[in-house]
Each structure stands twice: as C-alpha cells, then as structure tokens.
C-alpha cells in the first residue's frame, strides 16, 4: 500500500499553521491565528492519554491564559465534550471539531497532539501523545512567553511517556470522506446526486451503467480507497477506449473497479489489462463489435497472483474467487462505461457469451515444470504480468480420463482442437489451451515440452486441402474454385503456426479435464494477444 495521499500540508504557503474558526463550548467563535501565542490541544474524550493530559492543559490555561490562548480542540460531539469538561472541571475553552475538518487540515494522526504557535501563527513546539519532559519544556516556553515563572509541578508523579490514541480524523472511512471533501481532492469525475427517495442500485441499472448484474455504488469514499491501490496519478490517462475513443484515467478505471467489486490491491491488474486491451494490436473495438461474440480473457502471472489471492487451482475458470471475478468484470465495465460499447450499439454479437461478464484467471506456475506464459512472452519470472487473449467460445472441455501416455494426451488435445470454430476451419490463429494438472503430469512423465505438444497438435490436425473443401454436407470450408497454394493434397494444419497455440496451466489436482478457449480473427487485422507488466505496489 502506498502512503495515503495527504490533502493538507502541515503548513500553508506562507509557512504558518492553517487558519481556522471553531465555536467553543460556550458558543463563542474562536479564530486562529489570534495575534497572540496559542496552545492548540487536539483531544478526544474517549482517549486515556487525552484524559491524562487534560489537567495540564487546564493548568496551562489557568497559569498563562492572560497572555496565551490555550484551547482544547475536541473531536467529540457535545455530549462527549460535556463529559470531558465535567470530568476535569475544565475552564479552558473546548472548541468543537466534531466535524474533524481542522484535525484533518492539521494532519493530526494522534490525540493528544499539542501545538504551541507563536503570535504569527508559526509552530514552535509539538507534543504527540504524552511526555513529561516535553510538558516540562512546554511550561518553560509558556512561562517565557507570558513573562512569569512556570508553575511548580512535581513531574515525578507523572508517567515518563504515554502513546496517544488514533485521531478520529484518520479512521478508515472518515479519512476518505475528509479527503473527498477537501478542496485538493484528487477526484475529478462528475458527481451524480441520487435523490434521497431513489434506490441507488436501481438508479445504476436505469442509467445503463451495469452489465446486467448489480454493481457496487461508486461513492467518492470507495473510489478514494480504490485509488490507494496504485501510486499512479488519478488523472493520468492510461488508454483511449473505443468505440467512443474516450480517455481512461486511473480515476475512471478506479470508479469502474469499485462497481465491479474489486479490492484496491486489484487495481494495478485492472489498469494493466485496460492498457493491454486498448492497444492497436489487441484491437478491442473489433473484439467487442464482432458478431462472433468475442471477449477478452485475462490471464495473470507472477507474484501478484498470491498477493491478491487469485484462483489458479480448483475451479480457476469458474466462480467463487473475488479477484478472478471482479478483475475480469472491471475490464468489461471499463469497456462498457468509458468506451461506450453496449449490446445493440457497437457490440453486435449474434449470441454473445458469458465471458462478456468476466473471465480472468491465474496460471498455476508452481504446479508446472514448463516455463510460465509470461516468461515465454519475454518477461522475467519475478514480474507480475497480465496477458489478454480473445475468446469467442469455451471453455470447451477436453475429456480424456484414460490416456496414459504423453502422445495420447496431446493426441486428445489435437482431436478436440480440430473442432474449434468448425472442423474445416484450418490455418487458424490464436487459441488458449488450459492444461489441467493431471494431463500435465502425464505429459511431463515423459518429459514432453510445450513445443512437443504444439507439434503433435499440428501434425495430428493436418488435413489435405481436399478434405476441407465445401461440399454437400456442409457449405463451410475452402471454396472449390480456389485451390490453395501447393495443391489439394497439401496438408493444412489446424493452426497457422505452432506459436498460435497458447498453453496455460490451471485447474484442480484432481480431474483429467483440460479446456480450450476458442479465439477470434488473429493477426494485425484481428486481435493479437497482448501482455503488460503490472505496477508493483508493495
């Protein structure tokens, strides 16, 4: 996690402490700076160290109040303040900062925090928590300012030091609210006010902002928490999203990630996937517009899989894991909401497919003796990488529970792959073959490499062109009047080259069921797989 974004500097541009005005417990408005020295004591009633310090704050007021403005700045509501006053018999003014705006502006993380300011409003001394030596020095300072001797206090009766309590202004939820309210808020997105009588979930449906399932309402607090997942500037434009060719800022992606149900630590994966999706090579415009019903498939490699708890084992391509489900969904919502790709608009799928809700999984690298996907694609093993494929169909199971040799398992892969799109569709582009651990074990027992598996598939699926011609059985296939180069006897493998067969290891230890994710048009006029390194945020 990165350092939380601080919206308030300790000192303003002039170097002085921030100015403020608060009412005290008698209703009088107290404004800082006061043209005198001031002692600002941030406290709250339900804090032992604040209570420990209250008699000293009161004493400072009694001893030096004629020359120094001594104020307790209470984070409590009126009832809490009343308790504090009664408990300690206070005469010192207790200012009402129950809204926490001044605590926030002063970056108070701990109560009590006691700040001595000079008559120009500059900080002279600060005590965080309790320290008796600090208070001793503070009383000497106050005495010097007031021109009187400091009171005779037996410091041996006081503990040497006590840690303070967390300021209410940094409580989770409260802090994000205060940041969102501050003038320097990092949020720039248009704010939509949903009427008090309206159901926000229904509103989001009515506005066409969901994928058909409910979304988490993207409140400013949630979006700020989401932005804690990245170090990147919320206003950085990371991609241009078709079909609207709209700029995707980190903030806009974060809003959609909130809606999808992501946790902040998933955000860098979503951002990298959006970057990959919006490249010319990946061509998301074609992917979303095609009548074939194509959708991105997000595969994650590297250490981040473990850090964010992705599923790469049992049910990896299915439901039930938050990271898998929501990262894939966030990518889709970015496309829909920022890019404007909606069914019936530029999304023209004949049937559509459920991957258009989400499909994201991780490779089980540790289970596999093979080089993982991202290393094959040129990254370091220690990099976290997202790879986007395009799928129109699948996962289609390869059910083979009886093969006991590597060649048989690879043979089954080939037989099933023959059917991708259409048995007569040969010379095809990208396909993702998700190899399950049991099939992998059978292959590896004989030391088969990915290259051998690919070669076996290509060899097994090669058909003479004449077997792929259109005929009375089916009008799909090679046109009879267009004899392919090399003549009708030339064998044509299923895929244009072995490099189009992408092997990824995932799935449960038990079960001999691998799967195929069928691709779409490949190459520069279709969609090419694209990988992007994921920002490391530790």
């Amino acid at each position, binding site marked *: 996690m990165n350092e939380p974004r601080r919206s308030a500097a300790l000192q303003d541009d002039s170097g002085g402490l921030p100015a403020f005005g608060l009412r005290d417990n008698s209703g009088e408005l107290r404004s800082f700076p006061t043209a005198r020295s001031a002692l600002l004591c941030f406290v709250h009633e339900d804090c032992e160290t604040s209570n420990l310090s209250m008699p000293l704050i009161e004493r400072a007021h009694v001893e030096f109040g004629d020359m120094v403005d001594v104020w307790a700045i209470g984070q409590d509501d009126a009832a809490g303040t009343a308790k504090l006053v009664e408990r300690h018999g206070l005469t010192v003014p207790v200012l009402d900062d*129950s*809204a*926490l*705006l001044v605590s926030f502006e002063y970056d108070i993380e701990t109560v009590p925090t006691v700040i001595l300011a000079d008559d120009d409003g500059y900080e002279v001394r600060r005590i965080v928590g309790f320290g008796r030596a600090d208070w001793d020095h503070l009383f000497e300072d106050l005495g010097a300012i007031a021109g009187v001797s400091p009171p005779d206090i037996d410091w041996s009766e006081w503990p040497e030091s006590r840690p303070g309590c967390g300021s209410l202004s940094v409580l989770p939820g409260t802090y994000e*609210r*205060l940041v*969102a*309210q501050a003038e320097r808020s990092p*949020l720039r*997105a*248009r*704010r*939509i*006010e*949903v*009427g*008090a*009588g*309206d159901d*926000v979930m229904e509103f*989001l449906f009515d506005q066409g*902002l969901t994928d058909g399932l409910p979304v988490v*309402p*993207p*409140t*400013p*607090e949630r*979006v700020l928490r989401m932005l804690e997942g990245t170090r990147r500037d919320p206003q950085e434009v990371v991609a241009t*999203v*078709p*079909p*609207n060719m*709209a*700029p995707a800022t980190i*903030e*806009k992606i974060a*809003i*959609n990630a909130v*809606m999808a149900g992501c946790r902040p630590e998933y955000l860098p994966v979503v951002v990298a996937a959006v970057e990959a999706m919006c490249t010319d090579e990946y*061509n998301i*415009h*074609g992917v979303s*517009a*095609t*009548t074939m019903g194509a959708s991105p498939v997000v595969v994650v490699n590297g250490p981040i899989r473990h850090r964010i708890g992705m599923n790469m084992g049992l049910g990896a391509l299915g439901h039930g894991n938050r990271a898998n489900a929501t990262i894939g969904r966030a990518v889709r*919502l970015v496309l829909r*909401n*920022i*890019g*404007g790709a909606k069914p019936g608009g530029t999304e023209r799928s004949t049937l559509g497919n459920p991957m258009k809700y989400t499909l994201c999984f991780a490779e089980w690298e540790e289970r596999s003796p093979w080089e993982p996907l991202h290393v094959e694609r040129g990254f370091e093993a220690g990099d976290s990488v997202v790879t986007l494929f395009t799928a129109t169909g699948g996962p289609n199971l390869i059910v083979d529970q009886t093969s006991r040799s590597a060649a048989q398992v690879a043979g089954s892969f080939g037989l099933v792959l023959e059917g991708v799109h259409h048995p007569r569709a040969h010379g095809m582009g990208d396909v993702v073959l998700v190899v399950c651990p049991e099939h992998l074990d059978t292959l590896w027992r004989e030391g088969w490499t990915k290259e051998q598996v690919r070669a076996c598939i290509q060899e097994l699926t090669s058909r003479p062109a004449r077997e792929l011609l259109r005929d009375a059985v089916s009008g799909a296939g090679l046109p009879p009047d267009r004899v392919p180069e090399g003549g009708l006897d030339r064998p044509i493998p299923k895929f244009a080259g072995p490099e189009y067969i992408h092997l990824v290891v995932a799935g449960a230890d038990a079960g001999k069921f691998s799967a195929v994710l069928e691709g779409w*048009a490949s190459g520069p*006029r*279709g969609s090419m797989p694209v990988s992007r390194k994921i920002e490391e945020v530790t």
Partner: protein
Amino acid sequence: MTTGLTQGMQGTVILDPTDEREPLRRQLTTRPEHIVGTVGLLDISKPRGNVLLDRLEERLRARLPGVELRRYAKLTFTKPAPDDLRRQIAEECQFVIEALAD
C-alpha cells in the same frame, strides 16, 4: 456542521463511471429533394460488400446520370475508419452509402 458527503439529506453521491460526454440527441441531416454532386460508396471490406456496392453503382449510374460516384474502402472491417479516410469522404462527397454486409 454537516459532513455527510455520500449519505445525507440529499441522498447518495456517486461518481460518473462514463466518459461524461453530454447525452446528445443527434439530428438527422435534412434530406434534400434531389441528389446532386458526389455520392461516396464505402466498402468496409466485409466479404461481398463489394458485390452489393457494384450493383448499387450500376443502378445509381442508370438512374442518376448527372451524379458522380466514388468508391472508398476501409482496410479492414474490424477497425474504425481512419481519420484521413473519414475526412476525405466528408470533403469529396455530399452523400455516402456504406455496405455493412453480414
């Protein structure tokens, strides 16, 4: 002081997840009485789109002898028309017919 940013008297505030382009109700260009000038025929490179445009061109030449017909083609149907092509068509034509096929 009221600090309810998201849950207050006014209801809930959410952030706009879209690109915030104003919802525009596009007006159709006024249809003229007569076809004059240049008609563009755009092939998006889908199979048989050219066949459709060939037939259209024949018919239009027969019916509108005074009108100039120009053919254009996108490199691929999978990607949006390049800016230059869109500009060229807008500059050269008063009408455009696009063959979408499928």
